[in-house]
């Protein structure tokens, strides 16, 4: 997609966050904290980084994105609506019976979903296979995988990581939404992930760290990656779970809580 000026992308992020609040409160369910955490990463990808033609999504040469943290689907649907891949009005059907927008990604229902995630630790291996397919078939597309940080407790992530380095898929870019919270509590309290940079480095990755809410920094960091260096990439994006709404930010309980009553207006006002 053609890249927009940062100020316009920031406005997109605001719109998406407001829609997350509206959509989740309308649905009466949703992973609000996880949705808000990832929005700046998603807008950086979908309004700047990803090479894809809206009118030719079947193009085998286009970039791929896998939402490995499938519970962040609310943020993703709102991003797809903002980018015009799905109708904004369809957000009203989120989580309804047999809806086109169920609570985790379903490839058969929504454009730009590659993998039906929701069970954690699946995206990276599939990303490795996709990246490898590009190498083997002489295509130059890139594969982006967005994982949660709690998700990194899954052993399958590290099977995938080991093989990414083994297969030298330097067209693979993993982004970790490092908000330091998982379902019940801090990651470091439940099962420590740190030192995270050293772990990825030891697995053979090219490791970058960014402010996961600084859209320009995310875009610049990705642009500067060496895609011929023989090393897969990971970007540790420091984020705040529930980013943008004061009473949701950095609170574990908001992993899958939704705003009710006057909280909705209060949240929307904060996001203006």
């Amino acid at each position: 997609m053609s890249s927009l000026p940062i100020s316009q992308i920031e406005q997109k992020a605001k719109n998406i966050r407001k829609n997350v609040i509206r959509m989740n409160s309308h649905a009466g369910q949703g992973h609000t904290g996880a949705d808000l955490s990832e929005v700046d990463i998603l807008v950086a990808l979908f309004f700047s980084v990803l090479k894809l033609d809206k009118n030719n999504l079947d193009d085998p040469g286009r970039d791929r994105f896998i939402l490995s943290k499938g519970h962040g689907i609310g943020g993703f649907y709102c991003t797809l609506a903002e980018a015009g891949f799905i109708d904004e009005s369809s957000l009203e059907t989120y989580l309804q019976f047999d809806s086109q927008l169920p609570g985790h990604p379903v490839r058969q229902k929504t454009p730009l979903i590659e993998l039906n995630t929701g069970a954690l630790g699946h995206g990276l291996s599939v990303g490795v296979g996709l990246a490898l397919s590009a190498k083997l078939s002489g295509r130059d597309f890139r594969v982006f995988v967005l994982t949660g940080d709690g998700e990194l407790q899954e052993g399958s992530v590290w099977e995938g990581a080991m093989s990414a380095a083994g297969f030298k898929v330097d067209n693979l870019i993993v982004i970790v939404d490092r908000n330091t919270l998982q379902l019940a509590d801090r990651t470091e309290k439940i099962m420590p992930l740190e030192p995270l940079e050293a772990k990825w480095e030891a697995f053979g990755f090219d490791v970058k760290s960014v402010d996961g809410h600084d859209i320009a920094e995310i875009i610049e960091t990705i642009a500067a990656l060496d895609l011929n260096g023989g090393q897969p990439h990971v970007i540790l994006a420091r984020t705040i779970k529930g980013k943008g709404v004061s009473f949701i930010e950095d609170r574990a309980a908001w992993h899958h809580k939704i705003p009710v009553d006057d909280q909705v207006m209060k949240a929307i006002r904060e996001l203006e």
Partner: protein
Amino acid sequence: MEGGERTDLREVMIQTFIRAVEEGVNLAVVVGDSTSTSKIAPFREKYPDRVIDVGIAEQNLVGVAVGLSLGGYVAVTANAAPFLISRSNEQVKNDVCYTDTNVKLLGLNAGVCYGSLASTHHAIDDLSIMQGLGNIVILAPSDPVETEQILQFALKHRGPVYVRMDSGKFPYLHTAEYKFELGAVEVLHEGRDLTLAAVGSVVYEAFYAAGELEEKGISTEVLNVSSIRPLDEQGIVESISKTKRVITVEEHSLHGGLGALISEIISEQGVSVELLRLGITKGQFSKAGPREQIRAYYRIDQKGIVNAGQELLNRRHAWRNNKNEQAASV
């Protein structure tokens, strides 16, 4: 056991892969340190870029295969069935079946093929577990000819397929003219008194047993149920309605395998028939040891099937005689 030519089913598999690539199939075979298990060497020599070895990491094996399929490959996994089925179960469920990717899962050395290596290496639950998943075709070839046919079908079929594979040399039950048909039960031999319904690499045991039973005056029909899903319910009903007696034979747990499927058909369709199920005892791990002895223990070898067939017929006759006596005494 009868003589005759035998071929290793994995050699058939590898030759089928080679021919498929020659015919233009964009094939990638993913193995997990299972290059010897899959006897992949002749294929790898010809097409080194089409063999992906992920090491001992079954979850990643299936995930990488899924990624390759999303990138346009017909992705085939080739590793030992017990590890595929259990270790990577969630990848099979979500990434292959639910996502509906073009991945063919080959469960090598299924059943008690690994004999003495014991239950960690036995896959006596693969048909049951795969049937618990949505959106996957489930097949089990019976001999070298059908192995080739089924693999050719799988590579051309768009979507998830599981193939229960065996290793070692197996006898031929089909001529080169045989054509596998998805969702069709094959009548390998026609009979009137008894139906033997078998799946996979014990079909030949049933086939040879039928020959022996015929010599003993029991007209025996043999069904090769190589297509477990979709299943030819009508074909099975036709056979058992005719013979009124059926013995199911599988190197699989009696939980969730062929015997269970045929029990469902019998009860749902109200067919009046005597049923005897031969397989691994429900709720137990399989015995370990030489495979022939395991088969003998569970009566899924030729001799065991013959004995079971005679038993079932005698049971029937005993019941009839008993009833006649009762009638006479009234």
